[in-house]
């Protein structure tokens, strides 16, 4: 069983190597073909032009015409459809999520968030303590009010209970 697995692994590795080589070869062959797009006219003879940056919406979309392939009409997707399909692939979504996580966990972002949390906690604590102190102050009369009602050395007034019974 183990030997079969080993043979399969070696075959898969060899297939992968062959595929990578073929892909490299095809790209190296295609690369020089795209190069000769350079203008045949000398650069100094070209008319002067002003470069204007194009927005994504102004860029001319490359629309391919529908073709008949083996009796079927094949409609090539638009660029937006291709981009949307590529962005909705699971590993692209995962890469986007990982990039978002790394972006959110950058040191500066992390410090900003922790400082935000600490400030919020301290602000709420300060407000709560201030509200508690205010509540205590309103529930208990202040020393000035007490001073106005009585003189120094006087004991607070006690409720007097009269034991005399008037007849």
């Amino acid at each position, binding site marked *: 069983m183990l030997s079969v697995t080993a043979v399969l692994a070696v075959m898969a590795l060899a297939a992968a190597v062959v595929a990578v080589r073929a892909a490299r070869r095809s790209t190296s062959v295609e690369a020089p*073909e*795209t190069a000769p797009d350079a203008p045949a006219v000398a650069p100094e003879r070209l008319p002067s032009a002003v470069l204007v940056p194009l927005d*994504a919406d102004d*860029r*001319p*979309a*490359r629309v391919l015409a529908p073709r008949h392939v083996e009796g079927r009409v094949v409609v090539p997707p638009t*660029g937006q459809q*291709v*981009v949307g399909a*590529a*962005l909705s692939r699971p590993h*692209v979504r995962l*890469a*986007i*999520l990982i*990039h*978002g*996580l*790394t*972006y*959110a966990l950058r040191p500066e*972002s992390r410090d*900003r*968030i*922790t400082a*935000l*949390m*600490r400030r*919020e*906690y301290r602000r*709420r*604590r300060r407000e*709560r303590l201030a509200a508690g102190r205010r509540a205590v102050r309103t529930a208990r009369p202040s020393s000035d009010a007490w001073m106005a009602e009585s003189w120094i050395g006087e004991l607070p007034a006690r409720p007097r209970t009269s034991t005399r019974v008037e007849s």
Partner: protein
Amino acid sequence: MRGRTVWFVAGTAAGVYATAKARRAAYRLSMPGLVDQAAAAGLGWRAFAGELRNGMTQYEREVADRLDAHMTTPTESDAP
């Protein structure tokens, strides 16, 4: 005399420090403190989610731009 003063000041400072720390720890473990910590954690979570969304949007735009540039680049097959 000087040594006693030093020890007195050090003891007073340590007492004040320990009292403040103990009061804060007690507040943190009380119900209002737990509520405040939960509120702060909620705020932090919202900020983190915002950062995460920003990063994801940025990367999505990068990928889309890269794909768009690749799509709009004229190839040899498109040449008339």
